[in-house]
């Protein structure tokens, strides 16, 4: 019995120790590691600015490893470009060095495509970062700082939803009530916040885009170009792009006037708008890159795809004949006097290339675009040239008459033509002639920048005859809407039904 009594005492002792432990040791167990950033760190202006920089980092696809997804700084351009171009006759892709893109070239994108999944995930990751910032704005004491951070955060969300809805959703015109992608505006901070998402309609997404970008415009209006971060003008430019995508030309014209009235000027040559370490005069929004943070080196990122100054040549290869072939769908049909079609066949390093196309240093039967040669230069996202061409289109579409062509619209197109060495168009053109000219001008000016794909979709939605490739594929075909990744469908029952 003595033993049992002792055991009883023992148990009391253990219970006592447990009691002490529970009472006193939560504090002891609440620790931090050196340099750790843990818990809710969005507590003041400095930390929220860091988070906002992190949102930019993701939005622009600064290289984050192979499963990163490059969003605006890469894949959103690349996917849109590859989906429209004619394989072999026009372009080819080196799948070995950059896997996952072959599906876009083949116009048959699988749910398991790694690029689709990577960009989908990183897109929502970025949206979640800004949602979290927006939920913690009260922690910023300085009013003007809070206004600016809120503006940029809203703009990032608006821009990203716009980019995502036009890749993963149907067109607004004709399908506004169709379901597109999940609309998430509340932060997910804990695993318990992860719900099963449901799709919102195209119009609901566009409403969010416009609400975010309008609010952002108000917040940022006094800040000019905002040190090359997202500015009032960038917001207006994206509102214009969204309005164009909805085929709402009147709204688009208003936004475009605001952008074109801003402090931007066209470079004297189209080539000068590219391969600059800092913004050129015509860039409204860019991805800043430097040696330490960029969208990729060696095998990832735009510069790796377009530069041939390595062991295996460019990843994205262009047939020289495609530049002036009238045979290919949606082609620029460059004339000989167009500076933009010059091919540099002598340069042996990215630093020396002096025209928009150059001979591939390894595969000398093909050429490459020189728009994104170095990973230390800015990547243009929205250029003034696009704004001019869009305004011309918006004006014409609102009043489809010619002879004379509206003077502003004509001046917009001629500004782009004349700097490329082409003769100015006359105001005696018919509306159809002018329309055809400005469409082909868009193809020439914005080639390989990821713009044409979305143009074809909005034009098709507007009832125009538009085709992708010589196989006459309908831009509104489901194959040109990116699938929601298989892994997302598996994890979110009902989302993909």
């Amino acid at each position: 019995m003595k033993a049992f009594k002792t055991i009883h005492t023992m148990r009391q002792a253990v219970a006592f120790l447990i009691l002490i432990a529970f009472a006193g040791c939560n504090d002891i167990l609440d620790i931090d590691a050196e340099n750790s950033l843990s818990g809710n760190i969005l507590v003041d202006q400095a930390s929220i600015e860091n988070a906002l920089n992190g949102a930019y980092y993701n939005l622009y696809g600064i290289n984050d490893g192979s499963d990163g997804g490059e969003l605006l700084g890469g894949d959103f351009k690349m996917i849109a470009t590859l989906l429209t171009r004619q394989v072999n006759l026009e372009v080819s892709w080196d799948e070995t060095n950059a896997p996952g893109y072959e599906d876009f070239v083949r116009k048959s994108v699988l749910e398991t495509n790694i690029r689709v999944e990577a960009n989908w995930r990183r897109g929502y990751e970025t949206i979640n970062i800004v949602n979290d910032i927006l939920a913690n704005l009260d922690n910023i004491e300085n009013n003007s700082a809070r206004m600016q951070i809120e503006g940029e955060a809203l703009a990032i969300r608006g821009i990203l939803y716009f980019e995502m809805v036009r890749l993963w959703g149907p067109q607004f015109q004709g399908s506004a009530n169709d379901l597109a992608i999940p609309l998430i505006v509340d932060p997910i901070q804990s695993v318990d916040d992860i719900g099963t998402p449901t799709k919102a309609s195209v119009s609901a997404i566009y409403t969010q885009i416009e609400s975010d970008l309008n609010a952002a415009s108000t917040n940022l209006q006094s800040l000019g170009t905002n040190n090359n971060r997202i500015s009032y003008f960038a917001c207006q430019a994206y509102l214009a792009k969204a309005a164009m995508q909805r085929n709402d030309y009147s709204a688009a014209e208003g936004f475009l006037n605001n952008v074109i009235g801003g402090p931007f000027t066209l470079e004297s040559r189209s080539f000068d708008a590219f391969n600059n370490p800092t913004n050129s005069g015509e860039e409204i929004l860019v991805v800043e890159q430097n040696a330490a943070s960029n969208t990729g080196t060696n095998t990832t990122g735009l510069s790796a795809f377009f530069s041939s100054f390595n062991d295996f040549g460019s990843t994205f290869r262009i047939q020289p004949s495609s530049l002036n072939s009238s045979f290919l769908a949606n082609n620029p049909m460059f004339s000989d006097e167009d500076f933009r079609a010059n091919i540099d066949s002598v340069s042996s390093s990215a630093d020396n290339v002096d025209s928009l196309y150059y001979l591939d240093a390894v595969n000398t039967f093909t050429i490459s675009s020189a728009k994104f040669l170095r990973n230390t230069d800015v990547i243009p996202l929205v250029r003034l040239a696009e704004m001019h061409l869009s305004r011309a289109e918006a004006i014409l579409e609102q009043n489809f008459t010619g002879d004379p062509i509206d003077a502003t619209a004509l001046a917009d197109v001629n500004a782009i033509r004349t700097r490329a060495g082409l003769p100015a168009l006359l105001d005696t053109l018919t509306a159809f002639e002018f329309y055809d000219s400005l469409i082909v001008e868009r193809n020439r000016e914005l080639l390989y920048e990821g713009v044409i794909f979305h143009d074809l979709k909005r034009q098709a939605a507007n009832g125009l005859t538009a085709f992708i490739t010589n196989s006459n594929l309908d831009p509104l075909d489901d194959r040109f809407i990116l699938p929601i990744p298989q892994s997302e469908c598996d994890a979110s029952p009902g989302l993909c039904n």
Partner: protein
Amino acid sequence: MKPILTCLVSLLIVFTISAQVTLRGTVTNENGEGVPGATVKIDGSSTTATTDENGNFTIQLSDGYETLVVSGEGIQTQKIYLTGQNSLAINVKSSGSSYNVVNLGIGSQSKDQLTSSVSSVAAEDVSPAPLINLEQANQGVTAGLFVQNSSGKLGQGTTVRIRGGSSLSASNQPLYVVDGVPLTSGNQSNINPSNIESIEILKDAAATAIYGTRAANGVIIITTKSGNTGGMQVNVDYQFAISQTPKKLDIQSGDESRIQTFESILRGFEVGIAGLTVDPEIEIDGQRTDITRSFLETYFDQGLTGITFVDDATNQSFTFNIPSFYNELTSNTDWQDEIFRSAPSHRANVDIQGGTEQLGYFASVGYTTQEGILVGNKFDRFNGSVSLDSKITDKLSANLNFNFIRTQDDRLNDDQDLGAPLQAIVLPPSDSFDPSDNYRLIVRSLEYNPLTETNFADNQATSNSIIGSLGFRYEVSDKLSFDVNGGIDRSDSRLERRQGPETLDGAPDGRSQLSEQLTNNYVFNGWATYSPDMSGDNKLSIIVGGSYQKSTTSFDFRQANVNGISILESLNETDASLFEEPIQGDANVFLSSYARVSYSIGNLYDFQLTGRMDGSSKFSEDNRFGYFPAASAGWNINNADFFSSNTISRLRLRTSFGLVGNAPIDDFLYRRNYIRTRYDDEDAVELANLSNENLKWETTSQFNIGVDFGILSDRISGSLDYYIKTTTDLLFPVPVSQTSGFSTIFDNIGTMENKGLEVNINSINVSNSDFSWTTDFNISFNKNTVTDLNGEQAIVGVNAFLEGESAGVFYMRKFVGVDPTNGDALYDDGNGGTTNNWEDAPRQIVGDPNPDFFGGLTNSITYKNWTLSTMFQFVGGVDLYFATGEFLANSGILNLGQLSRESNRWYESGDTAPYPALNPFQDEPNSSTRWLEDGSYVRLKNITITYNFPSDKLSGMGLRNLSVYVGATNLLTFTDYIGYDPDVSYFDPLDGIIGQNISRGIDNFTAPQPRIFMSGIKIGF
């Protein structure tokens, strides 16, 4: 494996020799000194003898098969079963030594009262092998402990599994406790083996529960040597060894390589015209031929500059130029000779031990320098240690242990890096290298050559570590005592990496990186022991205590494109070329209380209850505390009234059940964590994980039943254990909606089971004064099953976690042969047919990298002053994936070197070849069962012959003992495995902890364990 087993069993057979009547003998202690005044008694009779001043005795026997009992003051009582010999050397242990006492980390217990499953490895079992790392020294030594080398490169980690792995996302390595300090630094690998007094391997829950949340993978308790109460003794030993590769792969010759290159060129031409022709043939010397082996052999070295294909059906002919480089490929380089070498190593050690009742001391210094068998690999280690035991007053005693370790490691690149020496085997044997051109290849100068790396890059790791503890014991009475101790485990390491401009990854001005890591791990521990008087032979012992442990690690990293560490260090903080960013450190705290109650009834029954409550900083407030109880019981059947046997001298039944835990490796998964990054030269942060307050530890319950036995007065002794270990709440990365920004989150789902049987048998086959022979055998069987993953699965490379299968099973396409018509590789299509489309073939469960059984067999034979000891180690029922072979075969497209057997490939229609046609355009690594191999092996891990100089000759020289030995490690390996070494476990460091836990049994350019020849001398005075 059957022949191997039979062989092992036959080695176990015991023989006996004939009888005598008068026995002369000597009783000696551990140091070989005669023990005077010891009593030698014939068990069950009144005949006794007492040893003289030199420990000698004479005793009359009736038939020579009696049992002797040797006892005396200061020595442990020992029984010896005689087998008719007429002389006998009896080695006894001092009763003060730890021989019969098992250190349980907190408190200790007599082996006779142990109710849990614990294996002990005594100091002398750690053989004189030239093994640098402690884990390797335990390979094959005891049941239940599986040790697998990750690589033969020096200073590499070792996979250690006690009773199988129990986790996917958390660690599977056991907890190491050195002199009471639970390590977080990994320093156990570098403790001087000569300083180790004993190693205890705690296997079942009853033994490990006192370590709570860190005990799921078992606990290894290492006790270093301490002082004693004798005069000062000095031991000096020195060892010299030479290491070599145990094997060279059979790689094709220069000519065979040229034939392959020639064929690749021709097949490339053929593919180029495939769309334009129907059945093209080569036209040469007016003859037409397909590409056949005999054609290749005839023409590969004829200096052909062009090849013409003709196609009758389309009436076309095509002429191609042979690339000019082809005719320059005339070398015959054995790349393995360029990277392997005979590497010397030296090990020296001096220690002193002694003391008085008041102060015992032990101190040692040791130095090891070892070169690796691969060029550029070197490992140096200095060990220093001090241990003091002081009896301050009658009631208060203190104990200090201090170990200092300094290592310097010239490391090799990761096995997968083109700069790793073993990557040289992919280079074409038909090419050679030019030392005056940065060691680049002469013909194919763009292929990276690891010799360039070893000559123009450095990768040196240096670390200074301390493991120390200071403890006090206050004995209030002989019933109650208090222990307090504090320990430190600190490791300061520095990795210098320089890549010169000549190397592949070096920038035009070179690149230098400096990584520093500082781990500080403190533990404070206090407990009370209460052992009240009990009636009769009953005993009660109660331990109650608590501990606090904090472990932190900080990291620093700087990098710049400069060619030299000193230049890097001299760069100003503001230098634009310098990359330096704050790196998040590690930190965790364990706050624990524990208790153990042991109760013995007579010498018949033992009961034990253990419990630990752990609080861990790794979990949210709601899940922070866990309670890990265990209960166990033992029954000494041989002491029961009903038991009477002349053969069975000891029979003890043990059983236990309990719970232990395993926490994730990451520190703060319960809350959000951010990573620092930069955008446009401004600081930025990125979310690393969402907060996850639901996470809790993985819980492992373990049932153990075992029996300890002794036969013929313990001439044969051993134990048998059966266990079922079930881990629930496995941390698993579960897919979630990526609208959260993440594709998976950790959740506690899933269960895993390990069931197994362990057998240890120790036998004294012969024991007399001139000749003795002992055998120790152990074998363990473990069956691992992932029983539930909530419908999920995890696949990394060719390994997978699948429900109902062993963890990490091989999951890949089944290669079924070669299509004789076109040479395509054929794969099982899953429907009983075959397909030549690798993608279409389903992955199947095709093998298991977890061994069915493993163990070791040690024999020690002493004849007069000579001792021969051998240690065989074996692993059976295990598969290995020879990923090296996969790469080599696919490298055929690049015309790199490959295994000679690949010459036996398909050449022309009708060939029934084991290997597919050479396809110059196949650019995917197609993993399949083509490279899945049986990885079973039996290895003569150690063999040593020692000569002990007779003590009578030494005493004149003032020496206590003197021995010399020669031996070899990994001398023989019996295996069907095709790679260098079946003792291998590669994982891609980029795959993280999950990859490490899944990727098992992969050999991917992994360096073999060296074959080592050694000789040494030990002197005691």
